[in-house]
């Protein structure tokens, strides 16, 4: 009888370990997304190439509630993930630009590096500059890249950590459109 008890305990523990080894211990839930909170507002300076079209500073609040927004945090030193997803984002922006607003936030980076990155991928959606990473903290960011999907009412719908691929991106956009 006691032997069976030991076997059960061992099997139980082994099962937990096995399950534990499958999952990624670094994944973390986003509080904003879980509770569908209103997206935190911010005002950040735009990088030079975009000032002509969007002004000197970009205020997210001006665009909240007017349609879905894709907010992407990136940095030029985040290799290879940001480099993989940049073309994906640019292509999606070109496809959906009349319905969805794409905003890139360059975080904890240097301006010349950021401009080099933008030029390399020919990014045309607006990019703002947040060297301190203050806005990242407001969004509960824990690494780059992270992409936030904000719905038409200005609430955070989902957060994707890591490089985003086309299928996932399109999937979220479909869910966001009314």
């Amino acid at each position: 009888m006691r032997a069976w008890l030991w076997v059960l305990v061992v099997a139980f523990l082994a099962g937990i370990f096995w399950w534990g080894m499958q999952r990624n211990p670094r994944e973390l839930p986003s509080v904003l997304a879980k509770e569908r909170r209103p997206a935190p507002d911010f005002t950040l300076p735009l990088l030079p190439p975009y000032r002509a079209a969007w002004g000197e500073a970009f205020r997210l609040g001006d665009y909240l509630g007017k349609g879905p927004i894709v907010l992407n945090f990136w940095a030029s030193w985040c290799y290879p993930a940001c480099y993989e997803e940049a073309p994906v984002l640019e292509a999606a922006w070109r496809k959906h630009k009349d319905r969805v607003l794409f905003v890139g936030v360059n975080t904890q980076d240097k301006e010349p590096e950021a401009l080099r990155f933008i030029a390399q991928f020919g990014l045309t959606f607006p990019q703002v500059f947040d060297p301190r990473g203050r806005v990242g903290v407001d969004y509960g960011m824990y690494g780059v890249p992270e992409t936030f999907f904000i719905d038409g009412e200005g609430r955070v719908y989902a957060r994707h950590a890591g490089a985003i691929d086309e299928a996932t991106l399109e999937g979220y956009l479909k869910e966001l459109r009314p």
Partner: protein
Amino acid sequence: MTPALLGNLSVALALAFSLLGLALALLAYLQGDGRFLKGAKALAPLTLLSALAAFVALEWALLTHDFSLAYVARNHALQDPLWVTLVTPWAALEGSILLWGLLQTLYTFVASRKPLDPWRASVVLAVLFGVQVFFFGVMATIASPFQTLPNPPADGTGPNPLLQDHWMMAVHPVLMYLGFVGLSVPYAYAVAAMVTRRYQSWVEETRWWTLIAWGFLTAGKVAGMWWSYEVLGWGGYWAWDPVENASFIPWLLATAFLHTAYVQQARGAFKAWNFAFVTLAFSATLLGTFLTRSGVIQSVHAFAEGPVGPAFLGFFLLSTALGLGLLSRVSREVRDVAVFHPFSREGALLLGAFFFSGWALVVLLGTFYPLLVEAFAGAKVSVGAPFFNQVSAPIGAGLLLLMGVGPLLPWRRPREEVFRNLYLLFAALALGTLLGLLRGYTLGASLAVGLFLYNTLAVALLFAEGMRARRLAGLSPWSFLENRRRVGSLLVHFAVALMALAIAFSQTYRLEAEKTLYRGQAWEVAGVRMAFQGVRALDEGRRFAVEARLSTDRFGEVRPRLHFYPQMNSPLPSPKVIYTPGNDYYFLLMDFDREKGEWASVRLIVTPMVFWIWVAGVLMALGTLYILWPASRPEAAREVSPA
């Protein structure tokens, strides 16, 4: 003959010899034929030689910069200094498993030379060879240090810079592995004892093994703490990181075992506990490796690698099942007839062992808790230093209390004259605490002072008693020093009390602050006045260093650095630590003006009494050595009781 060829061949040979040794040992036990045993014993040196050859092959590959080996390409660089190259075998997973395997073959060889009756000798060898089979099996299949690359690079990336910064890298892992491997021999003897039903003598026979293994584990832990302090740049020595916990748990269980083994040697009691503790202590070393190699627990320095984790998990389960299974089979025969009063030395030691193993369990709980919660509640939680500190403090306090009073209690039942000593001890405790409170220390720190006084007095009383007993027996009182076990353990206990005091104060009164200083600007903080004089850059081949010059009023010129390694994203601060008996002053260069070198951002961490932690570590090592040192006159080393 290339290093890869030699290495693979040697590992294969080591595995083959170990398998053969295991088979022969098992046959020796089952058939009762002495020739099988002779054969098994003969294989021990062969496994040692092949393991040594494999190790030499790896060193050969490193010293000749043979980048066709994946291990060398990943962990070695052309410009590594010689000493870094020599210790690269244990800089990463596959090489450390090789080191572990090598040490295991060494211990198996030494154990095989020890005379033992053939029944038990065969089981002991079978267990030891079995452990070897596991390690060399892992090396031969899933974690080979001799895997080759089809396109060898011209240069490698070198070991993790954190491992290059300090010479302790050469020492700490070797000490830890010597400790881990050392536990395998008492475990093997315990299994043999349970299989052959000879339950008493194994503890005496493995006395030195246990003490040496414990000594290495302790030295390894303290060395690791010191390395962390000097290298990692956060001014701490213990973070309750899963890797630290993974080696702390075996230490706790080994300490429990050390003390209950003593009771079995002296009084014949605790047989069942000893079997359980030695099994758990040995298995815990495997569990620790599983934890840190499988990515199960997220950690600052867990390097997750494929199937190695499950392999260690499996072997952990196997060794635990073997030990505890055998114990349950013989439990009826080793049950204690409890002829001792709880308030006796046996009682104190048993309670102490429970505290140690309870502590191990709590550390295990805290380390695994995030995993369990995610399994059942799907929530992400974290269990960090505050939890472990708060839970360990009362357990540690309890152990400090027991440590003082335990050796003073007589065997079997309390006696009248002991109570006088107990009152003295508790008076010292109260006095120390009161003094602390009067000086304005926190309650925790004051209790630490009280406990330190309490334990110091206990050690003094035990010395006095020992010397008095000698005098009454007609011997010189100083001959008490020849009772090496007593004196050595008293020294270790004192060192533990000192370390506890130092830890309490360093945790409670740590102070850190950060300030940006312009050239010539002075900063007065925590009783130190420093002025920033400038930065300079140095090219050190494998890294760039930026050094800030701070002129201080008390310590002359202090030069903390930032090290820039090509393979790391951000620089590593290399602190300058000033040790004083009172406080440690830990200077860190956090950032500097990249364009003109006009300002530097300096962090100062002032921690009291850290110096004494290292002193206590040295005292523990000395105490252990004293016990191990062969007595010049064995008769004089015996315990002498008062006439």
